[in-house]
């Protein structure tokens, strides 16, 4: 086939049947990898729901496990779960959206600094964050409540619905921010300027022009936060139990870790949550529909305004308040607690560095840090690269293959990690490939469980990319690979990196699957976290968390630098 160029003779296109044929595996192989990665463990899970005994013990086929859906106060669990996730999602969307708007649109002073600070709450393991907040708002002697009493304000009881929803929301805001920020950055400002030139105010422009354009990102953020909160149990475990709040995810943990262990019924609840993930994705797909959300096109993006108005300072106030509430206060509690021999809110326990000494001497400390860093970085990179290809299939190829990839890659979003990990053990324990008994089975688990996070970010990024850019490249004679490398990848990179960042800090904090899958002698940091929580060694736990947060902050800062160097936006 020959194409003509504007100022030259016709020349042959370097595109043959061979090129077409060889490009197909690039599409189908990543889709097929989803089978051993996600589909087979989910099938094991489904198989477990019909077994009368745990794996390894003699059992028979039964439907009895499904009675968990109408006994034991299941409806109450569902209601509580819905209240928690709906409230937390709404709060996280509003606050996270406002932060993303402020830092991308309102020319806030020190925006780059606040951009880094916004993510810090996500680095703190949920257990630890909830314990820190219990010391801030403990009804009798919490740091903040003591201050409130001193100035005559009413105290706040952290062991309440307010506490559970509030803390859960705080740790969901960074997720929303990470999804909305790259989407907002990709929107051409000239569209907003056109609206203002036609007489619309800033609020109307934001509501009628900006938000519709980033609708896929908003839907993705809402889906991820909703489903993630559904599977999150740590905050309820620390703050909700005293207030008689129980949710589905905590019930699953109770069924798999203590008391009368019941993996069959836990598997049923896990399958139910997976079904919720898929249903949520269906809502997102229909909400987005076949509309076009192209914001990355062939036009030059207008530069950000350099003058500061009222919105800039409003955004600054928002960022400062957010930083104080979600970063300064809990991190201060962690630092103070890490320097005490026992946690005390009256500073009566004295001060010591012994907790850091104990952490330095913790069995396998260096190995744990090395393994956690390596596996988390590899999981982040693996998910990012995998999502890049899979998202291309979902958005550009569409059809049945696209739908298959979209739904399968999102299915594990709400599946309890411990339940999924047991399924992975059963899949890999007897295989000759040497995965079992090595640290690489953890990497497989991280990628399978965390892929949904990076997928949503990558799909959103592709939805904003105008196909005409790819067509222009093809018409100019570039091969698909060259178009992918030189045109597509740089433009979707901010979104892909955002997804990779989410995977990175989730992998660093992942406890449930890590506790089951890590190999003897090859621990990861979450094993130490669990050990300290279960033994009530909270002062040491805080010392570990301070070091931990600093490590993740440094890692993510590095990722951010990488993203700024390579992004074209």
């Amino acid at each position, binding site marked *: 086939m020959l194409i003509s160029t504007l100022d030259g003779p016709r020349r042959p296109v370097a595109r043959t049947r061979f090129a077409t044929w060889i490009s197909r595996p690039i599409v189908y192989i990543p889709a097929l990898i989803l089978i051993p990665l996600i589909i087979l463990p989910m099938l094991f899970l489904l198989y477990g729901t019909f077994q009368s005994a745990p794996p390894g013990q003699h059992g028979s086929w039964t439907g009895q496990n499904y009675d968990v859906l109408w006994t034991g106060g299941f409806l109450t669990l569902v209601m509580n779960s819905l209240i928690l996730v709906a409230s937390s999602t709404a709060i996280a969307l509003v606050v996270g959206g406002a932060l993303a708007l402020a830092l991308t649109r309102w020319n806030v002073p020190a925006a780059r600094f606040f951009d880094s600070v916004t993510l810090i709450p996500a680095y703190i393991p949920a257990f630890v964050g909830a314990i820190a907040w219990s010391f801030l708002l403990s009804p009798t002697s919490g740091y903040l409540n003591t201050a409130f009493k001193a100035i005559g304000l009413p105290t706040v009881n952290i062991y309440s619905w307010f506490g559970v929803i509030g803390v859960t929301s705080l740790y969901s805001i960074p997720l929303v921010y990470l999804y909305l920020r790259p989407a907002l950055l990709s929107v051409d400002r000239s569209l907003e300027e056109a609206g203002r030139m036609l007489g619309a105010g800033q609020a109307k422009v934001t509501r009628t022009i900006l938000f519709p354009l980033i609708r896929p990102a908003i839907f993705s953020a809402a889906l991820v936060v909703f489903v993630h909160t559904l599977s999150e149990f740590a905050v309820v475990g620390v703050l909700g139990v005293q207030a008689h709040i129980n949710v589905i995810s905590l019930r699953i943990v109770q069924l798999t870790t203590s008391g009368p262990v019941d993996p069959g019924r836990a598997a049923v609840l896990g399958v139910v949550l997976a079904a919720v993930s898929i249903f949520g994705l269906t809502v997102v797909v229909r909400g987005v529909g076949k509309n076009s959300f192209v914001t990355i096109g062939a036009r030059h993006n207008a530069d950000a305004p350099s003058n500061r108005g009222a919105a800039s300072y409003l955004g600054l106030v928002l960022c400062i308040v957010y930083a104080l509430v979600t970063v300064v206060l809990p991190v201060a509690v962690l630092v103070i607690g890490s320097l005490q*021999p026992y946690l005390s809110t009256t500073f009566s326990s004295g001060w010591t560095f012994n907790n850091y000494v104990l952490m330095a001497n913790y069995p396998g400390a260096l190995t744990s840090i090395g393994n956690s860093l390596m596996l988390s970085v590899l999981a982040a990179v693996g998910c990012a690269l995998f999502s890049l290809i899979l998202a291309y299939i979902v958005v550009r190829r569409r059809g049945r293959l696209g739908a298959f990839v979209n739904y399968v890659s999102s299915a594990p979003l709400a599946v309890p990690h411990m339940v999924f990990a047991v399924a992975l053990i059963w899949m890999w324990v007897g295989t000759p490939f040497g995965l079992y008994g090595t640290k690489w089975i953890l990497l497989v688990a991280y990628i399978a469980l965390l892929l949904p996070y990076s997928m949503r970010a990558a799909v959103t990024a592709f939805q904003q990319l105008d196909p005409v850019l790819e067509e222009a490249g093809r018409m100019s004679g570039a091969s698909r690979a060259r178009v992918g490398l030189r045109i597509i990848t740089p433009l979707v990179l901010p979104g892909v990196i955002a997804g990779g960042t989410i995977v990175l800090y989730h992998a660093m904090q992942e406890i449930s699957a890590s506790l089951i899958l890590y190999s003897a002698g090859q621990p990861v940091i979450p094993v130490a976290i669990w050990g300290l929580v279960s033994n009530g060694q909270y002062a040491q736990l805080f010392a570990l968390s301070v070091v931990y947060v600093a490590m993740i902050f440094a890692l993510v800062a590095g990722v951010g630098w990488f993203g700024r160097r390579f992004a074209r936006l």
Partner: protein
Amino acid sequence: MSKIHSRVAVSIAAIAVVVTMSACSSGSSTPSSSSTASTGKTEGTLTLYTERDPQEIAPVITDFEEKTGIQVQVFASTAAGVAAKLEAEEASGVHTADVIEESGDTNMLALETAGNLAKLPKSVTSLIPKQDPAFTRGNGYSFSVTTTLVGIAYNTNLVKGKNIPKEFTDLLSPYFKGKFSVPISTNSTSIQSFYQMTKLSYLGKKYITGLGNNGAVISAHSGDQVSSLITGDQVAAITNDNAVWPQIVNGAPIKFVYPSKGLAAVNAYEALVTGAPHPKAAAAFLQFLTTKKAQQDLATTGSTLTIPGTPLVPANRPTVDKLKFFTNPDTAALLAAQSTMVPFLTTALHE
């Protein structure tokens, strides 16, 4: 080379370096079968599956390794996690673990029933001293060296004089209404200890119902209970000694009470895994656990020893020979009762 090519090349090189470094440091930590001769001549390693916090067992491992030269690799997880991994491996004919440490009689019964545990060799059983029946299973599959005692803790700054609790029944006093915590019903330690209480004539189910009516605050972790005691959110708690004593040693204003009428003991058992790839090393480790050195090591990390004769830490902490315990429950009956205990506790304690 264009800028984007060089950037991509640098990125790929960085990832390749990370993968190469990790590959060089990786390698299966599962001992290969060729080094697991049944004669044990090449048993230079041992794999321990444990429910303990790695810090708790670290001194024992260090001293064992120094004494024998056998390297110990540890897998530490929840009781259910250890059991799930072991059962999957055994069912698939993969033998990784040599020794297992697991707490709770029901967990041990499940492992025995599944055939995951081997009878202890005579070289080990001959070294186990006579113990209070509260700390033994008596079937030759395991023995205990440490236990978790469930008693009462209180804040010494807030509870004084005649209000200091001495027996479990003291928590029914109006003084403690809404100001004391109990562990959540789905905690296996709490199920066993509450089950034992229901079998006692002076406590029984009415006692547990009374706790609920007196405003017992439910707590998911013993660590939460202890930190609530220290901050004064609660003034007393039914909790375990292993969570309380380390904070007492650190100077926290709390005290642990051992009721004179008896308290519950949930033991941590040591057992040999069926098909252990290093049986001689496993036997050596189990033998070492019965020695004074190992007992001292466990005491320094805050454990309550079931073999009397070794002082605990701190020195004023009573040893088990000075205490009275609830009768050990019939394990099969306890296992069968779990499914009814949880709903009863949930209702009685208003969870």
